[in-house]
């Protein structure tokens, strides 16, 4: 495939993280290519969330290097990660419930116009409408208040926001954990459509069915150690389960 040849957008080399004396992550080496969906699986406490936090700038790795498009980066904060083009969709979505959809899409990055730097609602609304249409997130309107939307619609908005701002990489932390069957299918369709945007996607999921439906490769962690990486097409659930559990 073409994407196999593309150079990785994200390269983690020998990432190691310990909190005090407790080792949370040891020697993780992982690449994500543009247009590729890589799943991060493992039991509770395997270090998935810690790894996501390292990539999104919340924690600094104790040792190891993070390369973005080939150049090593060091991130001191999530603001910095965003500047590099890395967006995170959090488990709890990080949406402001009482604000309209379009203000959430531009949360912290509102567009302004004129010498007084007033909010440019018109452009923000138009952009939002274009984006939700493109990603097929079905919401009543860009004016809708987040609180009035269903769980699936909220997740759709959170992913749409990440998609709008991510230039390199989107990190998804359990994007369908709280959703019903139909909504999960919608969100998965949205995630799958990210491939065409040439963005790298790293997804944490507890559902192996979902991992096999969505991902190109699977990276298994157990107790902070990287057990292995498999190409999804060349493996099966039994192998992944035994890698996760160690039996």
């Amino acid at each position, binding site marked *: 495939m073409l994407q196999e040849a593309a150079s990785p957008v994200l390269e983690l080399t020998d990432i190691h993280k310990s909190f005090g004396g407790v080792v949370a992550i040891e020697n993780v080496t992982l690449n994500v290519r543009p247009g590729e969906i890589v799943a991060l699986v493992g039991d509770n406490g395997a270090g998935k969330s810690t790894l996501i936090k390292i990539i999104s700038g919340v924690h600094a790795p104790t040792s190891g290097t993070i390369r973005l498009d080939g150049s090593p980066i060091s991130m001191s904060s999530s603001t910095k990660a965003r500047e590099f083009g890395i967006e995170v969709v959090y488990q709890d*979505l990080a949406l402001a*419930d009482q*604000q309209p959809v379009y203000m959430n899409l531009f949360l912290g990055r509102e567009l*302004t116009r004129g010498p*007084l730097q007033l909010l440019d609602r018109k452009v923000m609304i138009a952009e939002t409408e274009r984006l939700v249409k493109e990603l097929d997130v*079905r919401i*009543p*309107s860009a004016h809708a208040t987040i*609180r009035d939307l269903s769980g699936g619609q909220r997740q759709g908005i959170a992913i749409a926001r990440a998609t709008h701002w991510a230039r390199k990489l989107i990190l998804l932390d359990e994007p369908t954990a709280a959703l019903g069957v*139909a909504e999960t299918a919608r969100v998965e369709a949205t995630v799958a459509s990210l491939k065409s945007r040439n963005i790298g996607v790293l997804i944490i999921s507890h559902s192996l069915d979902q991992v096999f439906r969505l991902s190109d490769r699977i990276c298994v962690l157990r107790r902070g150690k990287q057990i292995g990486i498999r190409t999804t097409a060349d493996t099966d659930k039994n192998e992944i389960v035994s890698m996760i559990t160690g039996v």
Partner: protein
Amino acid sequence: MSSVTASVSPVRRLLSRLNLQQYVVYFGFIAIFLFFAVVLRDSGFLTQRNLVNIILQTAPATIMAIGLVFVLSAGEIDLSFGSTVAVSALCAAMAMAAYPGAALPLGVAAGIGSGLLIGAINGALVAWLRLPSFLVTLATMGLFAGVARSLTQLRSIPVTDPLFTGIFGSGSILGVPSLVIWCIIGIAVGHLVYRQTRFGAHVLATGDNSRAAQVSGIEVPRIRLWIFMISGGLAGLAGLLYAGRLQAAKYTLGETDLMTVIAAVIVGGTLLNGGKGSIIGALVGSLLMGMLNNGLILMGLSVSDQMIVRGLIILAAVAVSLREKTR
């Protein structure tokens, strides 16, 4: 689920956007106005003099209400603005008495400056030490009420500079009283900042979901500092308006405004828990409280009865406000 909500009827969509609660204050205002207009038709309620008087009397409360909208919208509370009014008015009056040659600029600087300083103290304690704003401002309310008393040993300080009392009190431009002009400026600028700037959006986001605001790159502590400084600064301006209108400053100024202003802001559609509010609503809420005050006095209610009626209205407003939030 998603297919159901995605296809809500246009009527429901319009209704949810209209948001009736936001209009309660306007209906309430009209209803109470009509009630007094009928009941008090022989007591002079509808005279131009009385109506203008209502606006003039509510001017300082309206200015304070603007600040409180910002504070509540960011998910905090300020209980200290009443004491700030007294301290600011006294600082202004003392500065003017000490340097009558430059009374106006020094008075304004002392009044607004002391308000900003108190706001900065509240804000810093809340933003960086993460102390609950309710407790911080409860403490500073008492603290600065004490400061106001000790500044002048309970004496009243006269304000005699004609320029100052003109600009902040009895003056007028083209027949429009200066207090009304201050209210218009305050409401216009407040509304613009609140609704049309990134800062306003960040205040709302902070009150709505401070973690979401934080991970979205909004500097939440800075926002928290600012909203308290806005509240303090506007309380300072309210202090100047009191000093200008009464031509004196005393430690009792602003003492009774706390309840009125909180009620005005909440009746005006600002949520107690943050994330949503209205500057225009606060103006109407403030006028409503002023009108209520005026009407109840004209009806001959005793002070204690007035307090009871006002308390009941605040209760009703809070109930509506919280219902909306947990809907």
